[in-house]
């Protein structure tokens, strides 16, 4: 124990920022209890998000952290991440709602035993959603990961477009109603602690007095878990293999990194978090609707990763929270302030244009992101010979030229 404290002390001496993480965690856990005070602050009070908004922000940040594994660690551009969000949300819909009214199955769920349909406890649903999404990641990955970066991007985009359309048209697969079409699946069961209600924990978050607060605390813990897993993955043997592939596929293969297997793992593990976040968010808003899953969400998540810094786990978390805040609260607040000032301009209408501008400006002027990952920054500054393994074209035809040509 004392050696652990010594270690923390010595790390604190080397890096004064080490206290930042516990401070942020403490503030995060306290926020719902000081929310009223914060929202009443002069000047900035109007810009403080509610606890409910924070839950949404965290759900999307979790997805961004998952996407960061694929894009940031492994350097594979995924433009269809929304597909994983959809798989997660619909898993929750299938396993925890009245959708399959032919069946009556209850497993530790917080809803009344009278309800028809499958009702598995949301805790298990989160795990199953994660695993199913992982499977979806593998299924999408296996045929496509062989392709070079830009083709991979367009194929993932294709899957990101196919899955929502299948969901929308899925109310009659040979007469079987799988997804309930455009109406979506609602309501989805709440999260809760039915077995622990004796100790004072609510057995049903939606019905409890502090619905948003409970959802927020669990979401916050899930985000911490995601970030923790993501950090540990990055430092693992697998994570180092991902970074090796990102930096130089040919060299990584020559060093014995199995390309396909490593990339498939990146896909699967990246998808995992998207599924968990999707299922949790579906439970929070108590429904899964096909209109939620469209290409712009994929770009929104990508924008979070780019803004924060590809591969930088803290950067992506911060970038995700900033953009999600802007999307779900900030822009409309700013918009109402602008309109109060007498200008007729509504920034929420142009949210995706704003993300586009952020993406282009970041790529042009700060490609490593707001909080760059050290290694990735070096890559951007020194440039890499980004010649993929399967590329038989001229070595770096467009990257190697002498800048004085221009």
């Amino acid at each position: 124990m004392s050696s652990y404290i010594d270690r923390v002390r010595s790390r604190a001496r080397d890096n004064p920022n080490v206290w930042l993480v516990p401070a942020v965690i403490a503030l995060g856990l306290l926020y719902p209890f000081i929310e009223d005070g914060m929202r009443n602050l002069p000047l900035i009070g109007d810009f403080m998000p509610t606890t409910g908004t924070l839950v949404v922000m965290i759900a999307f940040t979790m997805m961004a952290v998952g996407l960061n594994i694929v894009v940031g660690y492994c350097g594979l551009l995924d433009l269809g991440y929304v597909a994983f969000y959809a798989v997660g949300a619909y898993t929750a819909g299938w396993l925890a709602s009245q959708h399959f009214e032919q069946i009556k199955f209850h497993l530790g769920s917080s809803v009344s035993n009278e309800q028809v349909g499958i009702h598995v406890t949301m805790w298990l649903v989160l795990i199953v959603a994660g695993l199913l999404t992982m499977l979806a990641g593998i299924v999408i990955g296996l045929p496509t990961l062989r392709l070079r970066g830009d083709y991979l991007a367009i194929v993932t985009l294709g899957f990101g477009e196919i899955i929502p359309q299948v969901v929308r048209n899925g109310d009659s697969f040979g007469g079987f109603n799988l997804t309930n079409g455009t109406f979506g699946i609602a309501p989805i069961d709440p999260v809760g602690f039915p077995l622990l209600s004796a100790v004072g924990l609510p057995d049903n978050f939606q019905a409890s007095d502090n619905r948003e607060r409970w959802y927020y605390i669990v979401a916050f813990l899930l985000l911490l878990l995601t970030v923790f897993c993501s950090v540990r993955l990055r430092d693992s043997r697998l994570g180092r293999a991902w970074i090796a592939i990102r930096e130089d596929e040919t060299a990584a293969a020559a060093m014995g990194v199995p390309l396909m297997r490593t990339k498939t793992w990146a896909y699967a593990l990246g998808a995992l978090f998207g599924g968990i976040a999707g299922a949790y968010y579906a439970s929070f808003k108590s429904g899964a609707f096909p209109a939620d899953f469209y290409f712009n969400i994929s770009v929104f998540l990508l924008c979070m990763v780019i803004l924060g810094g590809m591969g930088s786990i803290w950067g992506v978390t911060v970038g995700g929270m900033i953009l999600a805040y802007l999307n779900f609260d900030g822009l409309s607040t700013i918009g109402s302030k602008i309109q109060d000032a007498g200008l007729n301009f509504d920034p929420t209408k142009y949210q995706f244009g704003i993300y586009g501008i952020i993406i282009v400006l970041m790529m042009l002027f700060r490609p490593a992101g707001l909080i760059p990952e050290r290694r990735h920054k070096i890559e951007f500054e020194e440039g890499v010979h980004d010649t993929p393994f399967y590329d038989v074209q001229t070595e770096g035809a467009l990257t190697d030229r002498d800048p004085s040509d221009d």
Partner: protein
Amino acid sequence: MRETGNNILRTLRNPKVVNGIGLGFVAVIGLWLVVNFVKGPEEFVNVALDGLTRGSIYGVVALGYTLVYGILQLINFAHGDVFSLSGLVASTMLLSVLGLTGDSSNLVVVGGIIVTLAVTIPLFAIVNATIERIAYRPLRHAPRLTPLITAVGMSFIVSNISLALYGVDYESGSDLIPQGAAFTIGDIRVTWKLVFALAIIVPALIALRSFVNYTRQGKAMRAVSQDTEASAMMGINVNRTISVTFVIAGALAAVAGLVFLLEYNIRYDTGFELGLIAFTAAVLGGIGNLAGAVLGALLIGFVQSFNEGLTWHAPGGDWTRTIVFAILIAVLVFRPQGLLGEQTPEGA
């Protein structure tokens, strides 16, 4: 478990198996088409003509993708949005500036179309070249994903410019063209829409082909797309050549935007989906290959029209997007070099 997985993978990579599965798909589709043809030949041909109209528009957009990809290996996501912005500007020109209506005589409409093209072609050539100049050129030496991500960002910027200028309403110029058939052969109706579309698109394609094949600048484009480094050493101004490519792609987008406006209706986000379809067409034909892009686009146009127009076991319009992207994925998996393309890295 892992052994079985590897074995399945190895079997799947075997060219014979791959080709077999691919040919199987094609055979099933062929059979479906034949049955539909036998059940209603006239309907089949009419639907095919509709597919020709669509496909020719897709072809012009697909050429924009394939030209840029051939020279920069960049998927220019913004191209589809430039296309829809050009269509919207053309609607302003035709309907507001020139004040054409459904009652205007055909000669006036043709004149209006020519004037509109004279404005939109140079305008969008410049717009496209500007996008290249500010967003892509500074990233020439960056890692490969960087310009690609930038292109996605540019796509959103351009579509939001359309949104800011034109709002969410659809614009359409389809009243300007005479409704009904130009001529009929039996029950087969060749509509004025098809005639107008081909009358604009075919000259544009001929002009493009002559430019690429017979001019000095076109030769430079071909050289740069084959080997940038060597062309630079031979004294070709690579940056200017890339700019010229974007100028041509922008001009093609303007042509496609006008034709699309005359045939269907267009709004700020039309270009996104149409762009993806056109890109799929370019990949299907073999990306970087000009004839391939047109061939792929015609095929995709037929696929879409057959899917939405035929009656015997057609999945219908709800599934168009799924089918188009399934084709894209299948092409990339089974025949990455496309129908006419040369052996590309993906073929390895």
